[in-house]
């Protein structure tokens, strides 16, 4: 699979929001800055690389695959301690790990690491796949929030407003992504 094909696939057919059900909560927290989004993409690439290589070359040969969540926890705590140390050195306080706003990004990072790690084995593809999957997730989240914002103006039946409508919109997005994947991508070797 070429680089363009990989990015295309992970943004549409293999999008983690649609395939893994990582529905954002939709709490209005303001738009994220470009630096935050870039940091998220970089973290996703790093998580995919570290977890993918450790799973394939450290755990699998010894039959220790079941230790993967412990390994990811250790990686997460290590990365968090490093960020905290850098923040302290620069005099900028960082958020605690148990801050609820960090829960969804942590979930997405692990889902991306698992998804990409099981698909690729080379360093380059793990890095690129992790970044492309994060980019796809950010794009899909943007689409979903835009759809939800637009639907606020429509006369949607009362029981469907809120959570049900969010899931219905996600369902239609997943169908559209799968349709593009099956009808276009699988016939085209990009």
């Amino acid at each position, binding site marked *: 699979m070429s680089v363009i094909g990989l990015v295309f696939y992970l943004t549409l057919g293999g999008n983690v929001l649609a395939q893994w059900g990582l529905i954002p909560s939709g709490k209005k927290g303001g738009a994220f800055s470009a630096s935050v989004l870039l940091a998220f993409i970089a973290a996703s690439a790093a998580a995919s690389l570290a977890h993918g290589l450790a799973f394939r070359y450290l755990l699998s040969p010894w039959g220790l695959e079941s230790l993967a969540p412990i390994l990811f926890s250790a990686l997460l705590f290590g990365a968090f301690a490093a960020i905290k140390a850098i923040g302290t050195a620069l005099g900028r306080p960082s958020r605690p790990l148990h801050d609820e706003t960090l829960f969804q990004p942590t979930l997405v990072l692990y889902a991306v690491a698992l998804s990409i790690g099981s698909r690729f084995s080379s360093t380059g593809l793990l890095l690129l796949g992790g970044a492309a999957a994060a980019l796809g997730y950010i794009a899909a989240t943007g689409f979903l929030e835009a759809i939800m914002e637009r639907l606020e103006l429509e006369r949607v039946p009362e029981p469907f407003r*809120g959570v049900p409508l969010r899931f219905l919109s996600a369902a239609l997005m997943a169908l559209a992504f799968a349709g593009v994947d099956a009808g276009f991508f699988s016939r085209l070797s990009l």
Partner: protein
Amino acid sequence: MVIDNGRVSAGPLASLAGLAPLLVFSNSLSQGVALGVAFFLAYSAAGAMALLLPARLGRSLVFMFSILGAAVVSSLTASALRLFDPFLFEAAYDRVFLSVFTLPVLRACVIPATVSDRERAIERLLWGIGYSFLIAVTGAAREFLATGAVSTRFGTERGSLLPIFAQPAGAFMLIALAAAAFTVVIKAVRGSES
């Protein structure tokens, strides 16, 4: 749970979004049961550690040890699943591992802030059982809708009824319909009470 301007905006429905990664993958009874059990064990381990570890360790350390506890339990669950059915393990291990980082489990890792929160441990345990049951029932319902039958073994012969319900889009639709029905029922109950 809060009913805000006619909408059920928090509590069980909000938790559905947190459970969605497991509900989306649960497309058969066997996978639903495996994920339901994995989730319940991770959730219980996280909740128990957050409740029982000494508060003097501080919120961050208790949170970290609770996540590690849930990860260890998830690891043991995955090993048991591998012994039981290697194919089911290969198909489901990533979601079993992911259950540790789902929002309900991460929330359970946070040390209860007040004494009244601590006293609600049984209530949280019951919610955990409810969530696990929901994951298993979703698997059975989706398998039935997709194939017209429910099988207790993974990967056995089955027919075809509405295959879309085996896919993520079908899971989202089913969750949306269930959530809407739940909202109607809750509103009706509240209406009859007042």
